[in-house]
């Protein structure tokens, strides 16, 4: 694990007096909204949350879905899912599609007010006959019952969609408020495995509202500029763990010192 974690980074740290645009990915915007303290520790002090194991099966679903939609992108044709859900659109063909989908590059916008380079990597984008873009994100899980966007934690999915919509608008595209989640739910009742997991695939439309994005970028920038470490979010697992771990270790150390 330690091979890919550097607890004290020296790169990608925000320096208030720097003139070079500072890159902020959409996941860091989400981190800021989730817990400003964790965000500040990460981007200002260079101490990121320890990473977990990667979700390789989910990444594989994304890869295969991309291949599948690419066939229809090349053929300028509707994917059967679009027919099934009555979506009048086709995968959007654009010279930058690979760049937009690459997590290292993505679609970017340099915010002149803050000098922050906002970026996000999309899964897909579709276009309707009116020339409007629909942002598309693939999700994969396995659960009983229908997938939906109703769980409280899924606000992260909605924000993700809205940031992408905002980024495409800032890049002068005409973007529909309607985005789509292609949600793949692994079937748990499959009798025989036969070398594959089968999925129920559902397309869930979501009407986004990106009006919060600009304001949040400004707040996030203020947070980065500040010399004060922001308060933790009350429900932040990481900050709560840090507090509890430090307290118990301290108590134990004192106790041991007394015994010695």
């Amino acid at each position, binding site marked *: *694990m*330690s091979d890919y*974690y550097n*607890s*004290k980074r020296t790169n990608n740290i925000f320096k208030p007096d720097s003139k070079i645009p500072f890159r902020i990915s959409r996941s860091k915007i989400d981190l800021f909204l989730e817990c400003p303290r964790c965000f500040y*520790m990460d981007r200002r*002090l260079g*101490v*990121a*949350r*320890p*990473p*977990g*194991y990667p*979700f*390789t*099966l989910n*990444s*594989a*679903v994304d*890869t*295969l*879905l991309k*291949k*599948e939609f690419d*066939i229809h992108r090349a053929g300028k044709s509707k994917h059967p899912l679009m027919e099934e859900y009555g979506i009048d659109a086709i995968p959007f063909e654009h010279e930058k599609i690979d760049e937009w989908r690459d997590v290292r590059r993505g679609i970017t916008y340099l915010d002149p007010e803050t000098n922050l380079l906002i970026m996000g990597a999309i899964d897909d984008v579709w276009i309707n006959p009116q020339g409007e873009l629909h942002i598309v994100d693939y999700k*994969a*899980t*396995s*659960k009983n019952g229908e997938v939906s966007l109703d769980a409280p934690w899924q606000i992260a999915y909605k924000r993700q969609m809205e940031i992408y919509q905002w980024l495409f608008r800032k890049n002068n595209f005409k973007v529909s408020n309607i985005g789509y989640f292609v949600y*793949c739910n*692994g079937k*748990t009742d*499959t*009798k*025989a*495995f036969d*070398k*594959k*997991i*089968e*999925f*129920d*695939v559902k397309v869930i439309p979501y009407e986004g509202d990106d009006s919060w994005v600009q304001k949040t970028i400004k707040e996030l920038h203020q947070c980065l500029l500040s010399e004060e*470490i922001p308060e933790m979010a009350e429900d932040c*697992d*990481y900050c709560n*763990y*840090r507090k*509890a*771990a*430090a307290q*118990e*270790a301290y108590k*134990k*150390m004192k*106790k*041991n*010192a007394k*015994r010695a």
Partner: protein
Amino acid sequence: MQKELKLSPKSLALYFECPLCFWLKKAKGIERPSPYPFQLNLEVDAILKQEFDSCRKQGSHPLLEANNIPAKLFSNQALLDEWRNINKGLRYYDKELKATLFGLPDDILDFGNGKLAPFDYKSTGKSIPKIYDRFQLQMDVYTYLLEKNGYSTPRKAILAFYIVDKENPFEDKLPFRKEIHIIETDPSYIENIFKEAVLFLKAKAPRKHSQECLFGQWLKKQAL
């Protein structure tokens, strides 16, 4: 800690990685923040259990035959179900330590003459499967537990890797190719480690996070 102390391969791995994190979790109930669950891997495990169970009566499965594994699927379904059950598990209670070591094997192979070996399913989206140290430890613990439960073992474990085949489009399914890896297991050090970890929870030496501990590094570097 006054409750029955139960350690799993994961607990031992945590003890190896960082004794302080292990102590926080086992003695104080303070756990590292957990990631979202690995739903797809859990599902592959669940489906594979069904599949291998459906072949258990006839003893063999095409995957074992194709790889010339000279073993049958463990025939005692009831006992296997118990070993897979989180409330029971394959376990060993050490009277002196007053602690239990347990594991939840996916499956067991019977090599004849009463010899049993752990058989685990591993799924990955990476192109090349990797036998991580934590897999080795897990298999060493299962081997130890089988032996403590009176079985002899071939000192081997069989890992069935299900690797996503990314050649083709999705078509509502995630296709896998399969690879069998046989690894040697060594249960000889487990007893000592188990003992060391249990005694550690009762010891009074001052504690620090290990140097390699990511959470320790993360905690230390917080400018608080």
